[in-house]
C-alpha cells in the first residue's frame, strides 16, 4: 500500500499530500524598499518533505513542501513525453523529479513531485488545511523514505564540470 488517508486530526507528517495550499511567488520588487512588494499566489497540491522527526518533536514551525504536478497534464502540454514518465522518471532516475502512481480510492492521478519547486509553508497553515479535509493521502513508509532519499540525492549530488580525461 503506497498511500493511506490519516484521520483529520492526525498531526502533519512527511509524505502528506495536501490540496489547495497557497503558494506565493514574488513578482514585483523595489530594490530601494519604497514600494510594497507584489506577489502572486496560487492554490496548489503539495507534498510535505520536512523529516518526520522534526515534525513529531515540534522542532519546526515551518515546513518544506514540494509542488505536485499532474503527469498527464504535463504530457498534454508537451512538456514531457509519456515514454519519459514511464521510463526514467518512474524509475527515479531523474534528479529533482519523483513519480507517484495513481490511486483511484483517494482520487489521485499519476503525479510528479517537482523537488526543484520547493516552498516553505507555515506549519499551522498546513495543519489547518489537514483539519479541513484537504489532506488527500499520506505516502507510506518505504515509499516515503525512497522519496526522501531522492530528495536528498537531488541536493547532495556534486557535478563535475566535465568527465575526467582518460587515455584508455
Amino acid at each position, binding site marked *: 500500500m503506497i498511500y493511506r488517508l490519516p484521520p483529520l486530526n492526525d498531526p502533519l507528517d512527511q509524505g502528506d499530500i495536501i490540496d489547495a495550499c497557497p503558494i506565493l*511567488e514574488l513578482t514585483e520588487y523595489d530594490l530601494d524598499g519604497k514600494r510594497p512588494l*507584489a506577489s*502572486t499566489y496560487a492554490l496548489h497540491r503539495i507534498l510535505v518533505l520536512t523529516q518526520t522527526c522534526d515534525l513529531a518533536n515540534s522542532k519546526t514551525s515551518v515546513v518544506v513542501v514540494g509542488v505536485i504536478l499532474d503527469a498527464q497534464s504535463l504530457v498534454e*502540454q508537451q512538456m514531457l513525453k509519456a515514454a519519459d514518465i514511464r521510463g526514467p522518471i518512474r524509475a527515479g*532516475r531523474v534528479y529533482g*523529479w519523483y513519480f507517484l502512481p495513481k490511486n483511484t480510492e483517494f482520487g489521485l492521478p499519476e503525479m510528479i513531485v517537482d523537488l*526543484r519547486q520547493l516552498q516553505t509553508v507555515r506549519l499551522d497553515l498546513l495543519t489547518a488545511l489537514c483539519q479541513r479535509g484537504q489532506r488527500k493521502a499520506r505516502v507510506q513508509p518505504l515509499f516515503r523514505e525512497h522519496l526522501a532519499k531522492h530528495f536528498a540525492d537531488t541536493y547532495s*549530488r556534486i557535478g563535475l564540470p566535465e568527465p575526467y580525461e582518460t587515455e584508455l
Partner: protein
Amino acid sequence: MNHVLTDVFQKLNLEPGTYHVHVNGYDVEIQVVKRKTGEPIVTAKYDEADVMLEPWVELPRPKPIGTVLAYPAPPRPPDIPEIPSEDELP
C-alpha cells in the same frame, strides 16, 4: 639458470602437485600447476538504466489566481534547535 631448469623439467614427466627435493644442503620445492589459458578480458556491462539523468526542462509553476501586496516586517525568528548542555554531552 631458468633456461637450464626449463631444459631439465622438459625431460621430466611432471604432473600437477608439489615435489620436495634436497640439493646441496638446500630444500627445494617445485610446484607444478596447469598453465591458465588466456581468457579474453570482458568489459563491464554498461547499463544505461543505471545512469541518473538531469532534468531537461523546467516544469511549470502553479498558475496564479491573485496578487497580494507585501509590506516590510521584521523577519520571523528562527526555530532554535535543542542544544544539549555540556553535562549532557557524551
